[in-house]
C-alpha cells in the first residue's frame, strides 16, 4: 500500500515538475524566441550562401566555376574578342538547380567576380524565371582597325595607279 502511494507521488511530482517548466516559459516574456519573419527579417551573416551573383565585367571567362559545379548549374559560353580575350557571351545560372555548396565561388580566381548575395527570397512562378542571365551577349563583329583601313586604301591606290 505504501509503495502504491509512493509511486503515485513520484508520478504526480514528475508531471508537476514538467508543468512547472512549461508555466515558467508561459509567463516569462523574455523566453520568447519566435521571430516574426515576414515583418522582421534577420540580417544574414557575411558568409551567407544566398543567390549567386556574377560581376560579369571582370569575368575572365576561365570556366573554372562551370567545371567545378557538381550539378551543372552554370551554362557558360565564351568567344575570343578582338584583343584575344575571352568574353563570356552566355553566363546563365540556374537557381532552381543550385545546391548552394559554394564550390564555384571558391574556384573563381578573380576577386569579387562570382559571389553569393545575401538574398534568399527569390521564388518565381516559372522555372525559366529562376535562371539568371549574366552574359554580355554576342559581340558586334569587330571592324577593321584604322591602320588596316589606311593600308587597304594605299593598296587600292597603288593598284589603281598601275
Amino acid at each position, binding site marked *: 500500500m505504501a509503495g502504491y502511494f509512493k509511486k503515485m507521488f513520484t508520478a504526480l511530482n514528475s508531471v508537476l515538475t514538467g508543468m512547472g*517548466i512549461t508555466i515558467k516559459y508561459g509567463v516569462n516574456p523574455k523566453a520568447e524566441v519566435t521571430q516574426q519573419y515576414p515583418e522582421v527579417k534577420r540580417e544574414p551573416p557575411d*558568409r551567407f550562401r544566398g543567390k549567386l551573383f556574377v560581376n560579369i565585367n571582370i569575368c575572365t571567362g576561365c570556366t573554372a566555376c562551370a567545371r567545378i559545379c557538381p550539378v551543372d548549374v552554370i551554362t557558360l559560353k565564351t568567344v575570343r574578342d578582338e584583343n584575344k580575350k575571352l568574353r563570356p557571351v552566355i553566363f546563365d545560372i540556374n537557381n532552381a538547380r543550385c545546391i548552394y*555548396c559554394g564550390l564555384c565561388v571558391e574556384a573563381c580566381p578573380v576577386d569579387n567576380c562570382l559571389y553569393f548575395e545575401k538574398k534568399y527570397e527569390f521564388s518565381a512562378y516559372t522555372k525559366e524565371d529562376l535562371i539568371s542571365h549574366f552574359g554580355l551577349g554576342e559581340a558586334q563583329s569587330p571592324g577593321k582597325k584604322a591602320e588596316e583601313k589606311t593600308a587597304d586604301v594605299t593598296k587600292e591606290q597603288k593598284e589603281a595607279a598601275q
Partner: protein
Amino acid sequence: MPAADERFMQVNMGPQHPSTHGVLRLLVSTDGEVLRDARPYIGYLHRSLEKIAERVTYPQFTPFTDRLDYLASMNCNLAYAMTVEKLLNIEIPRRAQILRVIMAELNRISSHLIAFGSFSSDMGAFTPFLFGIREREFINDLFEMTCGSRLTYNYIRIGGVSQDIPEGFIGKTREFLDYFPAKIKEYNELLSYNAIFIKRLANIAVISTQDALDYGVTGPNLRASGIPWDLRRSEPYLIYNELDFNIPVGKGEVGTVGDAWDRYMMRIYEMEESSRIIRQCLDMLAPGDYTAKVSKVLKPPAGEVYVRAENPRGELGFYLVSDGSTKPYRLKIRAPSFANLSIIPKLARGVMIADLIAIIGSMDIILPEIDR
C-alpha cells in the same frame, strides 16, 4: 511480398506517416492491437548517390555527402574527407583537425537535439520538440556564420576545412556551452524522468547484447545495449585520443539494459559529453593553417580504402575504390541507419501498435541515409 494471411490485417504505416522520420513505409500485419510482423519498404528517397560518385570528381562529391544524413552533414563530410585523405596520404594541419572535431561534435549535439525532440513528439509530448529546436537554432547560427549554410554545410573538405572560423565564433560557442547544461537539466525534468514517459518506454523493445552485435547495430543504440563501442575511443581518428570524455553505456536505469528508454537516454548523455569535448577543443585551438595544401585536380593513386567514423547515428563507412583517375571508380556507403533499421522487424514482433512508434523513434533512423 508473401501471400497475406487472412487471419491478420495488412496495414501500411507510411510512407507519409509523421512518426516515420521521413518516408519509411512499414507494412505491418496486425492481429487486433498486436503486431505479427512489420516489414520496412525503403527506397522512396533513392537518389543513387553511389552512382553519382562515379560521375563526379573527388572534391565535387563532398556536397553530396551533406545529403546523406542531413541532420549531421558535418559528420558525413568528415567521414568522406577522411576517406579521400587516406587514399591520398595527406597530413592534416592540427588547427584543421581541432576545427573538425569542434564542428563534428556541435553537429552531434544538434542531431541529438532533433532525435530528442522528434522522439518526444512521437510519444505525444510536443513541447520538448520546440525546446530542442530552440537550442539547435544556436548551433545553426554558429554554423551559418562559419560556412554560410544552416543545413547542408559542405564545410569539411578534403585536406582540412573550407575556411577558418570567423571572428566571434569561439565566444559564441562558449556562450552556448555555458547555457546548454541548464537546458539539458530542463529536458530531464520535463521529459526523461517523467513518470508517463518512463512507463511508456521502460522494458519496451529490448535489444540484447547479442542481437545488437548480430544485426550490426551501431552508435547510441549499440551502447544502450551495454557495449562501450565508440569509434572515437576504440579506433581514434583526428585528435580524439587526446581528449577526455566518457562513453555513456546503457545501464537499465528504469528497466532492462537496452530498452527504448536507455536508447533515448544515451543521446542526452552524449550531448553532455560532446559539450565537454568542444570545451577542451576550444582551449586547444592555436593559430595555424586551416587546410593542407591540396592540388585542385585530385588524382589519388589506384587502390582501395575503407574508413569509418562515429556519426550521431552510428558508424558511417566509405569504401572507396580508385583507378588512378580524377573520379572514384566505386564508392560504397555503409549507412548506420540502414543496419539499425534492419533490427526493427525483429523488435516489432508481438508488440502493440503504439509501441512500434516508440521503437522507430528510439532507433533514431534517418531515411536519406538508408535510401541514399
